[in-house]
C-alpha cells in the first residue's frame, strides 16, 4: 500500500533541498562566466592555443569558436562559429571538427557545476569528457573520410554553418 504522507514529505523536502543546492552553485558560476566573458579571457587564451589546433588538422582561427563552445556552451558557440564561417575564416573541416569536439565536450562549467551539486566528482567528469573529445577529434582530423567528405562538400558548393 502506498504511504501517501511519507511520499509527499520525501518529494517536497527532497526537491526543495536539491533546488537550493543547485542555486547555491549555479548562480556564482554564472556570475564568474559573465566576468570571464567581459574580461575577454578566451580571446587571450585562444591565441596561445593556435599551435595545438594544427595537431588536430584545424586552422588557428578555429581556436576561439572552439573555446567559446567548450566553456560557454553550444548556444554561444554557434553564434561565434556562424560569424566566423560567414567571414570565411573557417574551412568546412574546421567546422566539422569543432562540431565533433563540442558534441562530446561543451558547456563544461555549467554542466559540471550541476552534476557537482548532485555529488559527482568534478575533476573526473571534466577530464573524462576532454579526453574523449580529444581522441575522437584527433581521429576525425586524421581520417581520410573527413578529407574526402570535405572535397565533396566544397565541390557541391554547399557549406552550411549552424
Amino acid at each position, binding site marked *: 500500500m502506498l504511504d501517501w504522507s511519507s511520499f509527499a514529505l520525501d518529494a517536497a523536502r527532497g526537491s526543495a533541498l536539491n533546488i537550493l543546492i543547485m542555486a547555491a552553485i549555479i548562480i556564482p558560476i554564472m*556570475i564568474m562566466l559573465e566576468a570571464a566573458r567581459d574580461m575577454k579571457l578566451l580571446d587571450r587564451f585562444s591565441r596561445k592555443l593556435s599551435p595545438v589546433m594544427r595537431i588536430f588538422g584545424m586552422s588557428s582561427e578555429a581556436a576561439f569558436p572552439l573555446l567559446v563552445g567548450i566553456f560557454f556552451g553550444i548556444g554561444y558557440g554557434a553564434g561565434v562559429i556562424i560569424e566566423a564561417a560567414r567571414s570565411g575564416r573557417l574551412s568546412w573541416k574546421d567546422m*566539422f571538427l569543432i562540431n565533433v569536439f563540442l558534441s562530446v565536450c561543451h558547456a563544461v562549467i555549467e554542466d*559540471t557545476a550541476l552534476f557537482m551539486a548532485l555529488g559527482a566528482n568534478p575533476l573526473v567528469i571534466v577530464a573524462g569528457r576532454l579526453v574523449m573529445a580529444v581522441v575522437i577529434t584527433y581521429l576525425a582530423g586524421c581520417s581520410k573520410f573527413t578529407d574526402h567528405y570535405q572535397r565533396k562538400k566544397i565541390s557541391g558548393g554547399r557549406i552550411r554553418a549552424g
Partner: protein
Amino acid sequence: MLTADTFRRGLGKGISVTWELSKIVVPVYVLVTFLKHTPALKWIAGFCEPAMRLVGLPGEASIAVVLGLFTNLYAAIGAIASLNLSPKEITIIALMLLITHSLPMETAVAQKVGVSGLFMTSVRFALSVLSGMLLNLIL
C-alpha cells in the same frame, strides 16, 4: 571591462538557469519519488539490471539514463537526485550522460551542420558506454 552590469547579468542568468531547472527537476523528482514508493521502480530496475551492471550502475539508474538520452540533462538530474546513488555511481552516470544527452535535439543540430546525425549519435553512445565501463574499473 568588469562593471556592475557584469554582475547583474551573471546573477540574472544564474536565476534563470535555476528557474528553468526547477521547472523540470521538481516534477521529475516527484515522479521518481512516487515510483520509489510503489513496486514499479523495482520492476524497472530488475529488468535493466543486467545491462546497467556493465557500467557499474544499479538497475534503477536506467530511468535517469533514458530521461537524459531522450529528453534533456535537467530531467536526468531530477531523477538522479531522487535515486539513492553512491558518489561513484553518480560520477559514472554524470560522465556518461554529459557525453551523450538530448539526442533528438542534438541530432537535429548535427544534421544542420551537414554531419550525419545517426553517425554522431552512434559515436557518442559508444564513447559514453566505454567511459562508463572504464570509470567502473578505475574508481
